[in-house]
């Protein structure tokens, strides 16, 4: 399963810069990023090429962060691609906490990162529907 790093940040100038600096100094590449804002604080969510080292680098810089499992679903890079995916979700009891994606040339499609409560179960379900779920390793190599 793909790894996402959730970083707790104060909502003040320069904090995201500090995160990117900490990762840059360890030569870690950021592949995707999303921000959830909650007033005085927020969560920065990162997909990187080396999650373990990224957590180390961030913790060294005093950031509170946590690795989370996310679904990295490959979808077609065309109108309706995401719609088709979401339509095939089981109707009840899957609540998407957060989602973001990007088009990736290497796989000739888009990767959509989905945060759900029961990542394992939803993963099997989507695979059953014919979707490709990228592994940890595959995401790192994107």
């Amino acid at each position, binding site marked *: 399963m793909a790894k996402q790093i*959730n970083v*707790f940040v*104060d909502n003040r100038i320069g904090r995201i810069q500090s995160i990117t600096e900490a990762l840059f100094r360890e030569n870690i590449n950021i592949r995707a990023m999303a921000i959830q804002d909650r007033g*005085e604080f927020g969560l920065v969510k990162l997909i990187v090429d080396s999650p373990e080292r990224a957590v180390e680098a961030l913790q060294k810089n*005093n*950031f509170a962060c*946590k690795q989370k499992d996310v679904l990295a679903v490959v979808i077609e890079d065309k109108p309706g691609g995401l719609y088709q995916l979401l339509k095939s979700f089981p109707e009840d009891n899957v609540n998407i906490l957060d989602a973001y994606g990007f088009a990736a040339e290497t796989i000739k499609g888009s990767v959509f990162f989905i945060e759900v409560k029961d990542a394992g179960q939803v993963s099997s379900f989507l695979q059953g529907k014919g979707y490709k779920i990228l592994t940890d390793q595959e995401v790192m190599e994107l």
Partner: protein
Amino acid sequence: MATLFRDKAVESIERGALEKYQLTYLRKSVESALKTPFYQKRLKKAGISCADKIKSLEDLDRIPFTVKDDLRESYPRGLLAVDIKDVVRIHTSSGTTGIPTVIYHTQHDLDCWTELVTRSIYACGVRDEDVFQNMMTYGMFTGGLGLHYGAERLGSLVIPSSSGNTQRQLQLMKDFQTTVVHATPSYMFHLATKIGEFGFTLKDLFLKKAFLGAEPYSENTRRKIEDFFKIDVYNSYGLSEMNGPGVAFECVEKNNMHLWEDAYIMEIIHPQTGKRVPDGEEGELVLTTLCRQATPLLRYRTRDLTMIMPDPCPCGRTHRRIFRITGRTDDMMIINGVNVFPSQIEQVIMRVPEVGNNYQICLTREGALDRLTVKVEIYSKLFAGDLSELEKLKAKIRDMLKASIIINPVVELHEPGSLPSFELKSKRVVDLREKL
């Protein structure tokens, strides 16, 4: 104006007679104090094994001070001087470290307290034809019940509206033609700003007087409120350890507060040396109860800074006046009239594993009311990474604080290491409120 004495003999008693009276009642207080486990130990150590050892008021110096921590450590029964069946009420206040303090009252104690309050508001011109709306919180907070019973005994029509619900307060003031209110100064400002918003005008009000207390304020604030409502504002002083309101009160002169010396012996001491300072010099107010059976307190250090006014008051009362409270010798904060110690907040934060040890308390003013913001740091090792967990954590801390300090704070979560460190006690409280 008609006589403003509720009890002229007591209020204008000659000083020599007052001191004789004080000595008699000091002996009684020592006698009942010796019935409590706390004072038995404390007084015997000081060589006071019976009340006869007190031969003059100068012997007061032989009695050791009592401090708030003593009350806390004696909780719940260490300072109870009567049989529990003779107690008719208690008032507890949240202690500085989570352990509360308690004051017991017999019926006699409540009667004395009520009489002091009645005497006080009578001195300010309140009469039985007045309509008295009490906007102070009822319950454990002594400000509500204290003034309530005092005004009732005077014969005024009392509206126990308690605090909050501004629209209803204004409606009651209009419908029942309230002439006197009891509130905090900040709440009076709040009322002033909300009158128009709720569709009232000053013409709807019949207000003549306001008793403002529970938080310190300046002459300037008094004038502003008087000018806005076209009323007289009277300052008062009290603390729960000394019953509550009715310890010291202004008279119609509005020139500082007569401390009722038939009920309390007052001293002003240097906070560091403990030595008495001369009248007119600032120091810490120390009080001894003279008419309380259930919980007598001897030389209690109030932590409030004030001074004794050296000149007599033109009103004819011989009970000396104290200057409006100028500060505290400890770090107590007064937030919307509620006393809060930073240590109470610290105690709560220490019980939450998901946050670190650093915290900051910010006090700001929103409109006329105080706002308390408690900033805490996320503890890295227990960070779950979910927004919903963080929201739950915030709500949990808010509820715990509310339960401990009674007021509702805003809780903010911050990054580890972003708040002033645990050792920097001075930066722990940031008070951005303009002085009232």
